[in-house]
């Protein structure tokens, strides 16, 4: 059930909002944290994966006989080792899972659909033998024409990835197959009438490059099977319950026969909400009878795991001379990669969400192409559409001569503003982020030669959902908090803070851990900025149950009725008619008498948390453009985000800084570069340029706190919306510096230089 709201008025918070030492810090910096690749078992084999050299090819035959005959090879698998899956979309629209697609993504069947697509896998007694065995596998390919660019993939004569794919979302359905998996459209108002009423209309088209999440830790998994057919996995993911469910499904196992241990995770940003190596390691282990470990290389990560989509977009916005928005139209075309499922629906829903616009149409296309299947990436979809919308908003503000922040403030959504997907906004927070940047000293700071300033805003839903937590009081009065949420952004620290705050004890007396899939109730992925909200509610609910029990135990010690004891400041205290009869009894004292009063003290809570409040961010970027090279230097970056309430302040600030830095990389440097044959040319961090510290100023964070009344401490979620405005803020700053509107990401030096020399003003 939803948690009851703890009223925050007058609530004095002692620990929430502080920045205590994070529990994962020391293990990580001393090298003692155990990631997926760090686990080993006796008799363990090494797994290796054979990957497609072709962007698109039919598999005529696979001969593994020579590999199987190699001494030291214990198992070889292909798609034949996985049961066929029914073709059906299961689950919600945006993230509907089609296991027919999923099993083909982890191991190609009829065709390979991108360079790096897994074709076979080997388990052997050493890495060298496994690699040698891969070279002995003979695959007979029939190369096929390929297509990568989203606009090219939508052409009627484009090579088809699936010869029978009919676009969903069009009524009546098209008569011919295409690479367009789905069309989505949202509308409010009367678009034609809206544009007819506009005094000014600005329309622009944009393209964005596909980019990778760039997590530092490659995927890795250790799998073992018992003789009774039960499997066990050690895997770094953003959701070990999802790893369990997907792996069990692809191996035709019961969910309860798979146990997944959460390893420490070296970044995910959405890219580790899906599976790649886990079912392969498990299948090799089942076939060989040995534990099997598979570790991806960085090249594997780039070539075979989900980046986010590249896109092609057109946005048109109409405005009155007084700055009132009257109409907006967006068409967003997203690369899904080799299988349907880009985040284009989110893009269509988020792009115009910050604004009160009476007439809106938002159209999306989910398009397959010969690239790895896209995976979630930090507010998936929203940064892409925001790049287009916020660039046009900047141009509209300039057209009517308004300050770009005041223009946004004039049109900012608030509680009661309709959204293009139907419901009215139920929370404020956006205007507060704009005001925070307006009031920031950076907004009035002078600029120098070749320098420019840009602003942009963004929206992300945040999320709730299913979470579980247990709270156990140890013999010495310290407390263990266990949850099912993988910790990718500081959740152990924030759970410990919320537990300590609720129980009234010290932060250092709480140890927060992530429990395996057999030791805690189902918990959904760590994604959607949901954990501090939803799992936090579960932790607080469990703590409240523990408090009830602590009061009952104290009542037994004092020979009072349970109703005569309350919990205050970490102590049981006689109340009502019994008030003052006994000195308050601290938690440690109650714990010391646990055996005398009924045994161990603990509680579990599971929730399906609703009422998540969205996140808004407004950002300011100052750049300097080198007119000779086109190089763009970020001089200053301010991010103001409504987080509801920061539980662990410095961790939340880190989330804002991280999102901005990823957005800067997306804006200026990052892109997948392919040759004419569809081969990825920059599958490594030397050539795929993510920002490093020396590229950046210190990111200036402003935590706007408009509490969410649906969370005991006001949490909204902090992890994602910070990336949403970043690319547009950089683009708007470049436009301000050189009077040229760049509409094609990344805005690399050659493109900036070409724009400078084009003579075309933005």
């Amino acid at each position, binding site marked *: 059930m939803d948690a009851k709201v703890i009223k925050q008025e007058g609530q004095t918070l002692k620990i929430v909002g502080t920045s205590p030492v994070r529990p994962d810090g020391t293990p990580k910096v001393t090298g003692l944290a155990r990631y997926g690749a760090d686990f080993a078992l006796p008799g363990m084999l090494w797994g290796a994966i054979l990957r497609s050299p072709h962007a698109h090819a039919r598999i005529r035959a696979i001969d593994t006989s020579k590999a199987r005959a190699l001494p030291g090879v214990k198992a070889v698998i292909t798609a034949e080792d996985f049961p066929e899956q029914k073709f059906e979309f299961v689950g919600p629209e945006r993230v509907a899972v089609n296991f027919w697609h999923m099993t083909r993504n982890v191991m190609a069947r009829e065709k390979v659909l991108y360079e790096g697509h897994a074709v076979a896998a080997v388990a052997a007694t050493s890495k060298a033998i496994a690699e040698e065995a891969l070279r002995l596998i003979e695959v007979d390919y029939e190369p096929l024409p390929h297509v990568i660019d989203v606009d090219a993939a939508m052409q009627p004569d484009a090579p088809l990835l699936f010869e029978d794919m009919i676009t969903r979302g069009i009524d009546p359905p098209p008569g011919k197959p295409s690479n367009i998996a789905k069309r989505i459209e949202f509308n409010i108002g009367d678009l034609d009438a809206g544009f007819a009423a506009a005094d000014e209309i600005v329309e622009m088209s944009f393209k964005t490059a596909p980019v990778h999440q760039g997590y530092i830790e490659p995927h890795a998994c250790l799998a073992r099977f018992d003789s009774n057919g039960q499997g066990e996995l050690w895997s770094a993911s953003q959701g070990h319950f999802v790893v369990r469910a997907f792996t069990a499904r692809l191996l035709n196992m019961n969910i309860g026969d798979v146990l997944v241990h959460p390893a420490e995770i070296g970044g995910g940003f959405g890219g580790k909400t899906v599976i790649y190596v886990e079912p392969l390691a498990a299948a090799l282990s089942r076939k060989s009878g040995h534990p099997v470990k598979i570790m991806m290389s960085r090249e594997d990560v780039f070539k075979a795991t989900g980046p986010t989509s590249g896109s092609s977009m057109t946005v048109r916005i109409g405005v009155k001379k007084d700055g009132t928005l009257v109409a907006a139209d967006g068409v967003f075309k997203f690369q899904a990669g080799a299988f349907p499922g880009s985040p284009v629906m989110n893009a269509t829903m988020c792009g115009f969400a910050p604004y009160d616009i009476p007439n809106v149409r938002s159209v999306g296309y989910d398009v397959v192409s010969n690239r790895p299947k896209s995976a979630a990436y930090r507010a998936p979809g929203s940064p892409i559409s925001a790049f287009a919308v916020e660039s046009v908003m900047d141009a509209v503000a300039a057209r009517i001569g308004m300050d770009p922040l005041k223009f946004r403030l004039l049109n900012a959504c608030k509680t009661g503003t309709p959204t293009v997907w139907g419901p009215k906004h139920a929370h404020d927070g956006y205007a507060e982020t704009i005001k925070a940047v307006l009031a920031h000293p950076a907004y009035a700071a002078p600029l120098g030669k070749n320098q420019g300033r840009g602003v942009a805003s963004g929206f992300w839903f945040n999320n709730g959902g299913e979470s579980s937590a247990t709270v156990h009081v140890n013999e010495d009065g310290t407390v263990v908090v266990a949850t099912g949420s993988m910790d990718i952004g500081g959740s152990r620290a924030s759970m410990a803070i919320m537990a300590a705050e609720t129980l009234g004890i010290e932060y250092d007396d709480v140890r927060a851990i992530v429990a395996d899939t057999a030791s805690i109730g189902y918990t959904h992925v760590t994604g959607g900025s949901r954990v501090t909200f939803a799992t936090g509610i579960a932790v607080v609910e469990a703590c409240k149950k523990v408090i009830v029990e602590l009061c009952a135990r104290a009542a037994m010690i004092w020979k009072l009725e349970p109703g005569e004891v309350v919990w205050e400041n970490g102590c049981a205290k006689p109340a009502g008619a019994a008030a003052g009869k006994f000195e308050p009894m601290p938690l440690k004292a109650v714990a010391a008498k646990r055996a005398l009063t009924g045994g161990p003290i603990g509680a579990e809570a599971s929730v399906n948390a*609703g009422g998540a409040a969205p996140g808004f961010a407004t950002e300011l970027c100052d750049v300097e453009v080198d007119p000779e090279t086109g190089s763009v230097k970020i001089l200053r970056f301010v991010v103001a985000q409504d987080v509801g309430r920061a539980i662990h302040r410095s961790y939340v600030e880190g989330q804002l800084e991280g999102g901005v830095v990823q957005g800067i990389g997306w804006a200026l440097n990052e892109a997948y570069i392919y040759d004419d044959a569809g081969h990825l040319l920059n599958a490594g961090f030397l050539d795929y340029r993510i920002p490093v510290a020396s590229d950046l100023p210190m990111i200036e964070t402003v935590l706007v706190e408009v509490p969410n009344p649906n969370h005991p401490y006001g949490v909204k979620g902090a992890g994602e919306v910070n990336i949403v405005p970043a690319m547009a803020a950089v683009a708007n700053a470049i436009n301000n510096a050189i009077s040229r509107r760049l509409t094609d990401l990344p805005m690399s030096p050659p493109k900036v230089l070409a724009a400078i020399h084009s003579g075309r003003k933005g």
Partner: protein
Amino acid sequence: MRVVLISSHSGHYTGGVKEFEIEAQTLHDVIRVLNQRYPGLGEHLEEETSVAIDGEIHEVAYYHPVRPGCEIYFIPKIEGG
């Protein structure tokens, strides 16, 4: 109360009808009424949508109270990164 179906698949069950006026006490009642009118729609709403009640987004769950005059939108489920 006004009930609106935004999920595009809902149209398969309702023949394209998207808006309804329903009297109910809980979300469970809303789903049951819709499923009686359009068999199969209830399972679709339970499994494949989120719900916004007066703008507050929740996962679909039976126990959510709905007040007279409120607005209920069944929307595509949102996940993040």
